[in-house]
């Protein structure tokens, strides 16, 4: 695995982390540990006909199992099917504001600023690692199990450190790191398992 972009734009980078007391060997030793804090994220919506329509219409998904209960049932599903690309992020979304919370958009917020949004994976803490300043997404693997259909409500559990590969690349020194999470429906059935990879590194100093 290697970083494919020589100049990683700021848009894809996340902030600094790590401690001088650790090396990548410490990170490798933490493989298998869970950094979710035991929290369970429950999506704030039950999948319904209109949310499926809003999802499918933008890129014009025409397969009728996404649109019609009878056809989906003919194909062996409980009801209209949620597209598999929607499971990891869309129908696990926890919402961004609830009554009683402060506004996400204070009056002094600038036009291009970003209001806080819900996290999509339960997170508490990070694995031990040397100091690094930047992270960007590299790859993802999603396995699918029980189909997700209209009427389902998704929960996300776990943030298990799945792999660590220290590597120096064209953009800097760091490690490829991946975390795995699992997705369940309201009956506790496993619907998906996603492993998301990133490159966590210190950018090369420019000459």
């Amino acid at each position, binding site marked *: 695995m290697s970083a494919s972009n020589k100049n990683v734009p700021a*848009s894809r980078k996340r902030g600094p982390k790590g401690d001088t007391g650790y090396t990548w060997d410490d990170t490798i030793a933490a493989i298998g540990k869970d950094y979710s804090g035991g929290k369970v994220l429950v999506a704030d919506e039950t999948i319904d006909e209109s949310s499926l329509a809003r*999802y499918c219409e933008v890129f014009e*998904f025409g*397969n009728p199992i*996404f649109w019609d209960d009878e056809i989906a049932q003919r*194909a*062996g599903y409980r009801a209209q099917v949620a597209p598999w690309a929607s499971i990891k*992020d*869309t129908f696990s979304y926890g919402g961004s504001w609830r009554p009683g919370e402060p506004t996400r958009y204070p009056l002094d917020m600038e036009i291009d600023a970003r209001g806080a949004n819900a996290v999509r994976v339960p997170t508490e803490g990070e694995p031990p690692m040397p100091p690094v300043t930047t992270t960007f997404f590299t790859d993802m693997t999603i396995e699918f199990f029980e189909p997700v259909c209209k009427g389902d409500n998704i929960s996300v559990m776990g943030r298990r450190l799945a792999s660590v590969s220290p590597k120096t690349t064209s953009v800097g020194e760091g490690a490829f790191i991946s975390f795995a999470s699992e997705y369940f429906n309201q009956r506790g059935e496993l619907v998906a398992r996603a492993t998301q990879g990133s490159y966590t590194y210190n950018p090369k100093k420019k000459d």
Partner: protein
Amino acid sequence: MAIKYSIPQQVYWDDVNEGDEIPSVDFNLTIQRMVIAAGGNRNFSPLHHNTRIGKAAGAGDMFLQNGSCLMLWERVVSDWCGIYARVKKVTFRITDFHNAGEKIHVGGKIARKYQEDGLNLVDLKMQSDTPRKVGMTGTVVLALPTRSNLTGTPRWNAKGVAC
């Protein structure tokens, strides 16, 4: 009750071969479409709906989020496979921005045809092309029905074994 949508032609494992290409789709990423995508998939990062932010971050414009890039693959695969096929696994890597104002070409090819854990599978090697270069690559593992069970949508348990 009358069925409102026509049922597309079904792809069967018996009929496909390694090397077969699946029909491709070209996507026009207008700004309106980017906004509808953000609303539809609940990803509200300004990178994906704000040109200024996208450009300031190094992209050519606002650009598609990772999950939205994957939606393009789902469109191509689900257009082709019929109602009785199911995706078992997907792996992907993004290698270029899918910017607003660009046309993205998405296609795939059957790289492998095999049977495993009681399932009849094909590995679709997928690729998205931006105007500049290959934008996304990876594999969709698809479980197909066979002609001995025409309407048998494949099912598997939490260990990935047919049930």
